[in-house]
């Protein structure tokens, strides 16, 4: 697999073209905006947080294939997860896309997130993959500020 094929895996292309949970959410109790001024990517994350659990999650926005697919897949895998589980997944995901996972020789249980393994070969694209995760963290923290990647 060439590194381009590794970056633009079928699952990523599919999610970027047909993003899941891409809608505004009625009755969301948390919301945060994320912005990457470098490429103009803009996303909003909506959460329905019940106690400590993500009962529902959705997003809206525009961006490149990597950031859009990342948003789509994030909403799929975090539904029903606790804050602590979401935090732990972000950490593993961050290690994956920044190449730390590869360095350590680890194989964390990332499930669908593993399709982003190719990002670590493209350092300038790490921000694309992590923008919505940073935005999610802001939403979980209940902070209404705009998250930027700068």
């Amino acid at each position: 697999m060439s590194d381009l094929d590794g970056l633009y895996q079928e699952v990523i292309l599919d999610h970027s073209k047909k993003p899941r949970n891409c809608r505004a959410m009625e009755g969301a109790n948390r919301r945060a905006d994320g912005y990457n001024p470098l490429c103009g990517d803009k996303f909003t994350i909506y959460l329905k947080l019940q106690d400590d659990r993500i009962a529902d999650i959705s997003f809206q926005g525009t961006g490149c294939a990597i950031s859009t697919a990342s948003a789509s897949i994030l909403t799929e895998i975090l539904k029903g997860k606790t804050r602590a589980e979401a935090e732990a997944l972000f950490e593993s995901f961050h290690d994956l896309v920044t190449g730390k996972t590869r360095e350590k020789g680890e194989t964390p249980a990332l499930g669908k997130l593993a399709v982003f393994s190719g990002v670590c070969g493209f350092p300038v694209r790490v921000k694309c993959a992590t923008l919505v995760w940073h935005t999610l963290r802001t939403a979980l923290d209940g902070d209404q500020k705009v998250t930027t990647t700068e």
Partner: protein
Amino acid sequence: MATTREVVHPSTREPSAPAFDVRRIREDFPILKQKVHGKPLVYLDNAATSQKPAVVIEAMQRFYTQDCSNVHRGVHLLSERATQAYEDARVKVQNFLHAADARETVFVRGTTEAINLVAQTYGRRHVQAGDEVLITAMEHHSNIVPWQILCEEKGAALRVAPINDRGELVLDEFEKLLNARTRFVSVAHVSNALGTINPVRQLVQMAHRWNVPILIDGAQAVPHLEVDVQELDCDFYAFSGHKLFGPTGIGALYGKARLLEAMPPYQGGGDMISSVSFEKTIYNHIPYKFEAGTPSIAAAIGLGAAIDYLNRVGMQNIASYEHALLSYATEAIAQIPGAHIIGRAREKAGVLSFVLDGVHPHDIGTILDREGIAIRTGHHCAQPVMERFGVPATARASLAFYNTKQDINALAAGIQLVKGIFG
């Protein structure tokens, strides 16, 4: 002394300007010989910065290996040589812009600093509450923000002349926005995001009808067109060395002598003074009044070498070669189904901005990079332009005279590859 600056280069041996031969031109640029990701480098990001011919790199190396010293200070030989080379570079810039007097050339870090200098000196002195500064909707952030800062400080208004769907300035609207409250006009000669060439001579005349001075941001113009500031009759003209095949960290501000003389200094420090006491400082003459501190001496010399090089190639040869190449590129991109060119001005130079249906420019940039093709993707420091065309970003291929039809063919093939990946 002169021998240290003598340029020994094959193209100087030609008795007259040779016919434009792009293969020979490319030989002058060492960086172009490399491979990127295993593919020959196709450098199409010239509007961001251009590559440097060997003569520029050598001129700077020669300064550091033979003449390195501070300017306007020492009585010793090295300082004399450094000063001479630095001042020679100023005359080269003067002649390049066809200015009347070398004192009208101020060395700055680049276009951004040149515009800030004018905003903070001329602008702060002449713009007051209720006044207006006029720019256009196609400006780079560096020709927006300095005026915003000034207007905010003074309680003045920043007025913006609109552009049409082709990306051309709407001249009637521009003219209508000039009025008795207008204190300054600042416009791009060539748009960095769209490639539009503005009819700057006409804009100067319109501004002057209201006795308003006008600055031309020439950052994207000087690498492509011959500029004559006396013919334009503009009051200020700014450009960056690094987009003109020279080094980073150097640029020039042209200003009419009577305006520069009346302006307060920009920064205080060494070289910009005639005498200093704790009671009073007497400022130096122009242009030194605006050159506080040790300047970027080697870079100025490098810029001078770039101008010498361009003069040997001939700006008119460059303009006509690039005009044909831009037409070829426009046709090549326009033919690709799903590709849309942003900026279809009738007068264009250097820049080809485009979008591709269903693919974000950032993804285009990554895939092209793996093919060895360097383009810029994003908002190009011109977010209002992106907004005007309703796109978050574009992919931008920008040309220089060392680019070839093969480069354009590689770009077109790369875009097909992008389409293949995104189905």
